[in-house]
């Protein structure tokens, strides 16, 4: 029997168990779907156990926060836990290169503790030989640390689980409620089994690359799986009757649960659905448009568009002409200049200025204050207006236009249709411009697909204070056909960043007039369309305008940081037990074509897709079958 401690892999890497983490939770026959998408439940369970059994828990567990230093320690601890939890919960765990496995069955009062020995590497398996492997029900292998200095390509302590649904083409049917039930697989593609009636099937999927990224692992596994592994590679010795079927199944769906921190139970990742291209989806169009498909078959499905960028800032060369200069006076400089203008100016100065204008103040074309930090000066000189030098030195700038960016990341929250319109709403507050609605569909994408980087780019004219704020989503796009990533400025808003400082009564009048007619908050019904329950609830909600236009004076007094407001629907998630869940009750939206025997669980047919014309039955029976499948759905 090979010890897990000294397994030798192809790359010569000697695997030694540094310490073992494990994963556990409350469960029934199909535990992993219950636990993995909502590791919160795991935490809840953990807390419950800690609360109720803290005095009885093995010291190894409490000392190390539910992780173990050695396999033996894990062995001992888990066996003790198994006794404690007998008839209470399922508890399971295993070690990646061998391990232990515990389960208790509340219904039967049984409690079993198993050791796994010799999960052999594919290259170590001699076809036709017998190897010892022992398992029951669901196996959840865990990642272990390897005892060398190299970091794993993926984050340590993370557990990657795959929930794989598939159908069998050549597998005998076993009449049992758990037929085609849950399958679980770990990132290194080592284990995958399932419970079928009284039999346990071990699919024996082995991956030659032990430490690879999860996404690679999925595709690698699929590749290997689809291109056959002979059953001779399966471990074969088991006290239970085994079903060893031909490995020629059609994978219909793969999901993977990413990043569950098994060391401390914290969820560090998300739930990522991966579409399997091998499954038949009814959405591919025929390019010639003559063999069905969705309407509009003439499109080339090519949307490799162009990025719309803002280009560079406008030139400020006109400032070199001397027509005008932008001074950046400090408060002290401004005080001195005011003194000069209002007290020190002489009759000869006025006469000189009046050569061109009736009022000396007309040479000060704009005077304002703003909260824009970081304006760099081009130099300093005496403030000169109307050709008359005041003798008061101030910084000035030769760049009238300035451009600067803000960024924010956005990703999905629910990981489903609820993250998009008409469920989720997005607003952006742009200082000096106001609060505006954004189209959530332009910005939303899952973090696992890179998320969306939202760029808010300001372009400011320091002569007038006018600004343009432009908004760009940068994200990947997915769909049928060819799409370029969305990386274009889609929105432009305008405002003014100056609070005018008035020198004359006329200036003040102009200032007030400039802000007249600005509306406050108001309530308007959302124009969202109504389709479906959730949507209708959201669309009935009022859309409250959080602000009016915020420019000029108001912007100076308002919030200086741009931000997003994301409004999401609150999904009601009823409690389901292990064998009765949302998908069991309602199914998920599918839109896939299949032979009915290739699927399992709840199925509802799309209206008109199913004629039952190969069934030898009466017409009334046929109508009843169709009605059941199309209106109520059936459980296969």
């Amino acid at each position, binding site marked *: 029997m090979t010890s897990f401690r000294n397994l030798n892999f192809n790359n010569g890497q000697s695997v030694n168990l540094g310490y073992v983490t494990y994963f556990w939770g409350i469960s029934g026959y199909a535990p992993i779907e219950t636990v993995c998408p909502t590791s919160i439940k795991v935490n809840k369970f953990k807390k419950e156990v800690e609360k109720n059994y803290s005095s009885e828990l093995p010291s190894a567990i409490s000392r190390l926060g539910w992780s173990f230093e050695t396999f033996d320690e894990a062995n001992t601890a888990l066996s003790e836990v198994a006794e404690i939890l007998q008839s209470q919960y399922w508890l399971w765990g295993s070690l990646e290169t061998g391990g232990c496995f515990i389960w208790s069955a509340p219904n039967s009062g049984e409690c079993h503790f198993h050791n796994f020995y010799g999960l052999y590497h594919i290259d170590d398996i001699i076809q036709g030989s017998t190897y010892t492997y022992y398992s029951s029900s669901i196996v959840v292998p865990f990642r272990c640390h390897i005892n060398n200095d190299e970091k794993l390509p993926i984050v340590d302590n993370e557990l990657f689980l795959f929930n794989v649904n598939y159908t069998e083409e050549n597998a005998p049917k076993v009449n049992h409620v758990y037929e085609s039930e849950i399958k679980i697989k770990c990132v290194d593609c080592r284990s995958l089994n399932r419970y079928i009636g009284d039999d346990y099937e071990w699919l024996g999927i082995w991956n030659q690359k032990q430490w690879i990224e999860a996404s690679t692992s999925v595709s690698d596994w699929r590749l290997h799986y689809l291109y056959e592994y002979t059953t001779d590679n399966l471990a074969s010795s088991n006290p239970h009757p085994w079903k060893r079927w031909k490995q020629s199944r059609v994978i219909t769906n793969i999901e993977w649960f990413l990043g569950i921190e098994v060391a401390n139970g914290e969820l560090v990742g998300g739930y990522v659905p991966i579409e399997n291209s091998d499954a038949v989806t009814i959405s591919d169009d025929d390019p010639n448009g003559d063999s069905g498909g969705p309407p509009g078959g003439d499109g080339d499905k090519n949307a490799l568009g162009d990025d719309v960028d803002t280009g560079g800032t406008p030139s400020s060369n006109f400032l070199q002409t001397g027509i005008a200069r932008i001074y950046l006076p400090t408060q002290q400089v401004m005080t001195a200049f005011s003194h000069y203008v209002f007290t020190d100016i002489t009759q000869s100065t006025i006469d000189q200025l009046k050569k061109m204008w009736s009022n000396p103040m007309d040479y000060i074309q704009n005077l304002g204050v703003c909260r824009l930090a970081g304006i760099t000066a081009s130099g300093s000189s005496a403030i*000169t207006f109307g050709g008359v030098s005041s003798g008061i030195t101030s910084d000035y700038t030769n760049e009238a236009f300035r451009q600067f960016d803000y960024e924010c990341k956005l990703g999905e929250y629910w990981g489903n249709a609820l993250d998009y319109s008409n469920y989720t709403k997005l607003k952006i507050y742009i200082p000096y411009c106001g609060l505006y609605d954004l189209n959530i569909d332009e910005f939303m994408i899952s973090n696992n697909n890179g998320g969306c980087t939202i760029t808010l780019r300001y372009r400011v004219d320091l002569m007038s204070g006018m600004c343009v704020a432009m908004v760009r989503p940068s994200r990947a796009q997915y769909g049928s056909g060819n799409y370029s990533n969305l990386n274009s400025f889609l929105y432009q808003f305008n405002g003014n960043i100056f609070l005018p400082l008035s020198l004359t009564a006329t200036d003040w009048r102009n200032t007030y007039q400039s802000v007249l007619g600005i509306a406050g908050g108001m309530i308007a019904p959302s124009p969202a369309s109504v389709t479906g329950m959730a949507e209708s609830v959201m669309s009935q909600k009022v859309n409250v305008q959080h602000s009016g236009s915020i420019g000029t004076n108001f912007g100076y007094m308002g919030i200086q940081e741009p931000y997003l407001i994301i409004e999401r629907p609150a*999904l009601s998630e009823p409690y389901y037990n292990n064998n009765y869940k949302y*998908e069991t009750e309602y199914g*998920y939206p599918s839109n896939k074509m299949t032979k009915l025997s290739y699927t399992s669980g709840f199925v*509802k*047919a799309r209206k008109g897709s199913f004629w039952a014309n190969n069934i030898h039955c009466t017409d009334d*029976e046929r109508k009843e079958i169709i009605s059941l499948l199309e209106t109520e759905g059936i459980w296969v």
Partner: protein
Amino acid sequence: MEGILYFNKSDKRYLKKDITQIGNSLDVTLIEPTTVIDPDIILAPNTRVMEVNYIWLKDFNRYYYINNYTFEYERIIAHCHVDVLMSHRKELGDEIIVMDRSDKNRASFYLNDPELRMYNYSLFETKKFTPKSGLQFKESTEQIVMVCSGSL
């Protein structure tokens, strides 16, 4: 006609019913005229009818729900309705359908799902933008800007 009585625990929407045979096969008589979909059959008065709700009729090669019983002198009439799913499950399994909803073969979570239920409140999140260059708006900044003409 030969028939086998069962106790059926499954909902009618299950393709394969969870049934338990009650007693041995027995001879049943049809009340004629009858239909293959809703036959009425005569059972012997000593039949354990209170324990059964399901029957297989050999000649029709179909399974039937027993919807109700009528008790008469020395006979019991069982009013049946065909279970189309269980009866034709093998042929049904070969039928190709487009699934509108499925437990195991979902297309994507991004199809609209009208079965989801929402609370009548929303979740709100605010996210701040981060400045990416030296320039930014700051509460603490008070930058005076004066534009003068005739500055040379």
